């Protein structure tokens, strides 16, 4: 009985402690803020400061936030992308193993490209031949309008 109690107590302390540290770290690092749409939060980990500054002075500031261009426009896709980006960003920043200056991954580039087309559909419908990937790559919005969101 006493041994049983001791074991449960140890388990309780361990799990409780780990949970407490986990929750505290999450709150301290403002982890919850990443669920929102506020671009200020994307600069939490300091890497995105320049992009954030650039966006504030950019032409898209009044109409689009980070998420509008860098996550898909459906809810599931959006949070899947946020989770994946969030995990990898924290991983690379914590371990300090990332390319500087930071670069868009191919997947992110595609998401961003689709976002341009999402909002500017009326415009690009008249330009693109078809939605076939081969054709959309040929006429890439980002190739010429790379700095509309933020410079670099």
């Amino acid at each position: 009985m006493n041994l049983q109690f001791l074991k449960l107590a140890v388990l309780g302390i361990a799990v409780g402690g780990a949970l407490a540290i986990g929750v505290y770290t999450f709150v301290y690092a403002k982890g919850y803020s990443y669920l929102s749409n506020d671009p200020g939060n994307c600069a939490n980990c300091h890497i995105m400061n320049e992009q954030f500054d650039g966006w504030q002075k950019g032409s898209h500031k009044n109409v689009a936030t980070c998420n509008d261009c860098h996550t898909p426009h459906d809810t599931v896709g959006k949070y899947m992308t946020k989770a994946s980006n969030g995990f990898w960003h924290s991983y690379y920043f914590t371990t300090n193993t990332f390319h500087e200056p930071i670069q868009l991954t191919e997947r992110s580039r595609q998401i961003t490209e689709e976002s341009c087309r999402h909002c500017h559909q009326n415009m690009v419908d008249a330009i693109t031949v078809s939605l076939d990937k081969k054709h959309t790559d040929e006429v890439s919005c980002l190739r010429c309008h790379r700095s509309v969101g933020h410079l670099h």
Partner: protein
Amino acid sequence: MENEENTVSKKAPAKSRLYGGKVVVSVAFLAFAAAILGLGLLTNILERKNEAKNPFFRVVELTDDTTDPEVWGKNFPLQYDGYKKTVDQVRTRFGGSEAVHKTPKDSDPRSMVAQSRLEEDPRLKTMWDGYAFAVDFREERGHAFMLEDQMFTERQNVVKQPGSCINCHASAYAAYKKLGGGDIVAGFQALNKLPYFEAKKEISHPVACIDCHDSQTMALRITRPAFMDGIKAYKASQGIQNYDVNRDATRQEMRSYVCGQFHVEYYFKGADKQLTYPWEKGLKVENIMAYYDEVKHKDWSHKQTGAEVLKAQHPEFEMFNQGIHSRAGVSCADCHMPYKREGAMKISDHHVRSPLLNISQSCQTCHSTSEAELKFRAEAIQERTFNMRNIAMDALVQLIDDLRKAKERGATDEDLAAARDFQRKAQFYLDFVEAENSMGFHAPAEAVRILGESVKFTRQGQLSLKNGKTLLATAAAH
């Protein structure tokens, strides 16, 4: 029976208790591991937050008289670390310095120097014949060597160098203040007048923190009176009167100007050897040539031809100003001291070097293409410039040869005057590209244009000799 039942009923709970114990231990172990990882992450986040909060810690008080970079380095260890790394000797395809062993002598204690440009290209000796540069001219090494390489070059033994040379190779700000009694312009003028080794006594470090930064605000500032005057004269030529560089320049302009204090074309004006930047008419090569023609400046008389010629120094600032990067608002520091990350902090890299050794930070900030592609583009520009430079160099050597032969045949100064003037021009134009560190990259089209002009002058020089010879022959027949 009862006993048996008891044994069975006792056995079963014992098994499950044991199983339960294992689960408890494993879960507890995992929880511990998670807690340790969690703490590790927490500490990392805490560190990063603090790094982002405090860009530096003041551990010593810096004043306007703190010359020693090591003292500045106590407050700015990351920048200082970079500054110290300029001892690196790394080659690039068309530049950079290769470490060459050398036996130390009493007069020159260096055991390592850079490769000799004169050995690489003996045509340079012909171009500079009669001048100290034809004796010893090596590839420039990193900033760490600027002072000792100047002190121990063979050129010091061939000519008496003036104190003016110190301006760009040493931390002279404190010396200006001391010699001028607080007035840096008066101190600057006094330093220029001294012989080199007298001036050397006034200084103790190569160009250091205080030569570019204000000790109180860390703001960039110009400390070289020659640049203040030069840029003022240049701005006046552009219609901007009374330009005070420390008052009127933008922050981004200062990120080029602090380098432009040193990396420029210059000459020593008058008997007092006052360091002067020839920008009154503009920064382009013809503006500078016109200025020198007007003030009738010559660096020396060419040994083989007697032409009054010029040695272009290292007009990086002037050349860069004719290029596309300058036009786009890029500064020297953007490529040669790009921002780098140290944890959550971002500092400018004080390991000043060729951008080709750091393509990701220097180029990819703006150019979103691979490092290999960017290197290819840069080297393609350099290779074209190098080929054109060789054409111009061969042409110049031919003109010098023709001039020498004409002189030997007994042509008079009058006969040779035009050809000598063309040599002066062709040589200065060629040297403007040759002496400029970037092999054309700072302004590709301008570099090739200048070399084209140089070839034009050479051919005109040869033509004038040919016509002169015809005239002589005609005169003899009569």
